């Protein structure tokens, strides 16, 4: 009894100062994220690029395929802020347009990779048993596949069909997004599975189970939200990886057709003119580099912000 009298005020004294800091998980994460200076810089740069790519073509109304041989291979000038290519087409206009596609590919491929990975990891981790075993062997198998050669093989085999059924732009877009996403879900699946294995034994999930929550509700309402931290980080990095994968394909001349100037495609066209028109390669290359660097820094910041070990430290 005497113990109670002592411990009660102490207990209150311990909890009271903590009150004002009782933010939600996401407010906490945002606060820690803002402390990561380079991640904030990455956010600013990436936001600027996204805004430029989305709003740019509305403001800067130079057509992307306006051929002007008098102005071909010119460096940056007032008429053409980023110079022109070998047909005298304006590079800024082409980069703004191509950036839309590069970023759209990155985000769409990331969504596919994340959804597939989460689904497979969740089934594997929640159901367990033989299906877990089979799914994990499939994951291992996919991790062994050499990505770029396989990507090239699939694009080579299926490009013409999709082009003829969906049109050149949509067909190639769907194909590239599906294949890049389809070859990148494995790390997410492993992460989600590991999270599920530990979370499904936790008391709060047991409580939900005890209260009669059906499996789907347990997964969607209780386990999945708690497993999303590493998935968000992996997803961020996946956007960068997908942008690089698409640029690589286009750079090898096997991605988008020449009339769709993604950044990789511009580099492909520019690489044989490096000696007299370096600006043609430098601008799209820098575009890819800055986008990828910003995304990677954002991923790094998110990792720090979402890391449960850091939650204890701050």
């Amino acid at each position, binding site marked *: 009894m005497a113990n109670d009298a002592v411990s009660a005020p102490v207990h209150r004294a311990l909890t009271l100062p903590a009150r004002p800091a009782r933010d939600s998980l996401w407010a906490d994460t945002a606060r820690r994220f803002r402390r990561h200076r380079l991640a904030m810089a990455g956010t600013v740069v990436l936001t600027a690029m996204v805004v430029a790519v989305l709003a740019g073509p509305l403001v800067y109304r130079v057509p992307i395929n306006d051929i002007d041989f008098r102005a071909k291979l010119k460096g940056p000038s007032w008429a053409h802020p980023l110079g022109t290519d070998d047909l005298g087409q304006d590079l800024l206009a082409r980069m703004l347009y191509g950036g839309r596609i590069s970023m759209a590919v990155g985000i769409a491929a990331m969504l596919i990779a994340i959804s597939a990975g989460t689904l497979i990891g969740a089934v594997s981790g929640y159901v367990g048993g033989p299906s877990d075993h089979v799914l994990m*062997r499939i994951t*291992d*198998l996919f*991790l*062994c*596949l*050499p*990505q*770029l*050669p*396989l990507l*090239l*093989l*699939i694009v*080579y*085999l*299926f490009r*013409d*069909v999709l082009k003829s059924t969906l049109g050149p732009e949509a067909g190639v877009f769907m194909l590239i997004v599906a294949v890049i996403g389809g070859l990148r879900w494995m790390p997410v699946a492993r992460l989600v599975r590991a999270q599920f294995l530990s979370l499904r034994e936790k008391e709060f999930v047991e409580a939900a189970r005890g209260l009669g929550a059906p499996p789907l509700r347990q997964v969607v309402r209780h386990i999945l939200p708690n497993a999303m931290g590493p998935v968000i980080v992996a997803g961020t990095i996946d956007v*960068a990886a997908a942008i*690089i994968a698409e*640029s*690589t394909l286009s*750079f*090898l*001349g*096997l991605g988008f057709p020449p009339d769709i100037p993604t950044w*990789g495609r511009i*580099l492909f066209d520019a*690489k044989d003119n*490096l*000696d007299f028109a*370096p600006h043609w*390669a*430098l601008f799209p*290359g820098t575009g*890819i*580099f800055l986008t*990828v*660097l910003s995304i*990677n*820094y954002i991923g*790094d910041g998110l990792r720090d912000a979402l890391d449960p070990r850091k939650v204890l430290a701050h």
Partner: protein
Amino acid sequence: MSRYLVRRLLIAVPALLGISVVLFTVLALAPGDPFEELATNPNVPREVAQQLRAKFGLDDPVPLRYARWFTSMLRGDWGFSFVSRVNVDTLILQRLSTTLFVLGSAQLLGLLVALPVGTLSALRPYSFFDQVATTLAFIGFSLPTFFTGLLFILLFSIYLDWLPFIYRADIAATGWQWFWEHFKQAIMPISVLGLFQGASLTRFTRSAVLDVIRLDYVNTARAKGLSERVTVVKHVVRNALIPVVTLVALQVPQIFTGAVVTEQIFRVPGIGSLLITSILANDTPVIMAITFVFSCLVVLFNLVADLVYGWLDPRISYR
């Protein structure tokens, strides 16, 4: 150790089988086949086309075709290139050594950069050196290889005119001259690939060393009077290498991506650039074979990683 090796080998076999099934499924699902031209060519009678199809078993069920393809791959019969009119295996063997040379040297360069830099960074975390190193590493793996390659060409071949940007397999010189020419032309492809690998490996090494360095056994090593060098090299780095080896193995498929790109940029006559030319020339047998060779290399390097793993941590091989 030998039992461990055998077990690893037995795991590699189903992996190869699985990969071959995936590759063949992709091919079987794809529309069109090599005899499509015959069907539309008016000069070839219908019956002849049919007979040819039957002779090569193109209308057989997919599993049967798979079995035939896989057994002939095993026997070393890799088919015939549509374009070069040479057996696929000779075509690949001619070029495989160049690819392995570039890949191996690049990986070596990456490790030579990453291990010391990553370890030094972790020994003094958040020092000036560490901040420079981590920033450079971040920039390094955000720079895609195709862009670094172009930047290198622009700087070293065009502005400075130090290095050739086309890789030649048939250098006429002999002796030291030959060696020097080879060395000069290999610098750029190897450093593009090696520095890219090195950048991500540096980060892995740094975090692996950071995880180990605070453990009690390291304090024990210091307390019993071992020099800092011995403590770091023999006690810290050896244990920190274990996760690094795993990551190196996991990254092998990624290195091949870089290899294809650098071979294409610098016109290195390896199997990566052969893959691109075959795709542009619709040379399906070569494409399939190269993809399969890349997969085999992945499995092989995973096997090597497992062995290194067993050597670094003897407990693993006894389990």
